[in-house]
């Protein structure tokens, strides 16, 4: 089953003379274990696509399915729950809460979802350990380097076994070695079954993805061929 399915999405901002059509009839399906990069110039609709995929914003037309659920038909509460449990977000500027330690930043989404503090803390430590950040768990964001902050943000996005990872220029603020490390991590999570959509204008980062989709003027104009590999062969509909 696909983790994310966008069906003929359109998005219009404003009205009348100020009307801007950000997305036009965009369809995109991302399977479990698949990493998709969305490339396009500024203003091509990349960020709108991501916020709509993450149910942070509703499309003007079309349907958004996450794990087979039509998110536009969910109540506000059910949608928030889906966002907390199934979807992880990674932003260019990390968006860590400055007053919380690395571990507290990572455990927060679990606690908000009702997991006990102790369990959430243990899960956070495990997620940080996997990203090589055990020594940084008690530090605050301003005591971490840019690369470490982004890894903490990735830990926060994947903690609790979320199925969909959405990243907007996740290595935009990092140097090339740290940027590569971030993409390597996201790809590693995908190999374990997470689905990811990474929005970027950087071809080097996009080249980590299994499939690259090209967006222009709000339309999908092209995409790369999916390489034939054992994972893709397994996911082909029979």
């Amino acid at each position: 089953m696909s983790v994310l399915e966008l069906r003929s999405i359109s998005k219009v901002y404003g009205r009348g003379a100020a009307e801007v059509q950000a997305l036009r009839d965009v369809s995109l399906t991302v399977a479990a274990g698949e990493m998709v990069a969305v490339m396009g110039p500024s203003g091509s609709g990349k960020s709108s696509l991501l916020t709509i995929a993450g149910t942070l914003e509703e499309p003007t037309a079309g349907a958004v399915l996450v794990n087979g659920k039509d998110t536009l038909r969910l109540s506000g509460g059910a949608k928030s729950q889906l966002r907390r449990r199934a979807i992880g977000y990674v932003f260019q500027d990390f968006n860590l809460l400055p007053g919380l330690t690395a571990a507290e930043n990572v455990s927060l989404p679990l606690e908000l979802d009702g997991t006990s503090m102790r369990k959430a803390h243990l899960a956070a430590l495990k997620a940080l350990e996997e990203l090589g950040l055990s020594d940084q768990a008690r530090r605050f964001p301003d005591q971490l380097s840019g690369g470490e902050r982004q890894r903490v943000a990735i830990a926060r996005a994947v903690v609790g076994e979320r199925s969909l990872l959405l990243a907007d220029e996740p290595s935009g603020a990092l140097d090339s070695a740290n940027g590569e490390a971030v993409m390597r991590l996201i790809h590693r999570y995908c190999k374990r079954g997470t689905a990811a959509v990474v929005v970027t204008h950087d071809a080097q980062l996009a080249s980590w993805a299994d499939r690259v989709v090209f967006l222009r003027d709000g339309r999908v104009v092209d995409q790369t061929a999916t390489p034939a590999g054992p994972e893709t062969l397994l996911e082909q509909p029979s």
Partner: protein
Amino acid sequence: MSVRHALLALLSEGPKYGLQLREEFEANTGQVWPLNVGQVYTTLQRLERDGLVTAIGGGGPGGEPGPQKAYRITEAGAGELAKWLRVPPDLSVPPRDELVMKVLIAVRVPGTDVSEVIQAHRRYLVELMQEWTRLKEDDNGRDVAFSLVVDSELFRVDSVIRWLDAAEGRLRRALADGWNPARAAAATASAGLPTRPTMGVRR
């Protein structure tokens, strides 16, 4: 790429045999540029002729190279190597790039959507980068020489994609401003080609 200087560099570590030089060359370039043993021997012969290396054993200097012969770098060879490492390669003259030509020509062919031409090239180049990135991922930084070669290819292809992005943006703006490529070219031809400053004079 200079096989000649690569061999001198390997010999600067100590005397070596031809076969050994080939293996080390390939290992040091991440096995991206294969080299046949004939090329190694021909290059060694020329280096010996120019006094940059000397043969040891195997019938003495001047004879046919072969597996039994080792080579040592001379003082002149070490000097040549040091000089070569520091002389910038000539990048001042733009290469006659086929992709640049295709885009320039596409602009002039009636009924051709330049954006579509550019996108076809962009997709191909991104697919190429995906292949390099996959190799890099599989290697996981174990072979540093290989990572260096892959990074250099990724940056090179990336720069071509950036040029395509910039070219597409520039063309869209120009066409939106009413630019007509055929008329512009005719106007330039009748006014005489503008003189451009010579590049690379600071080298």
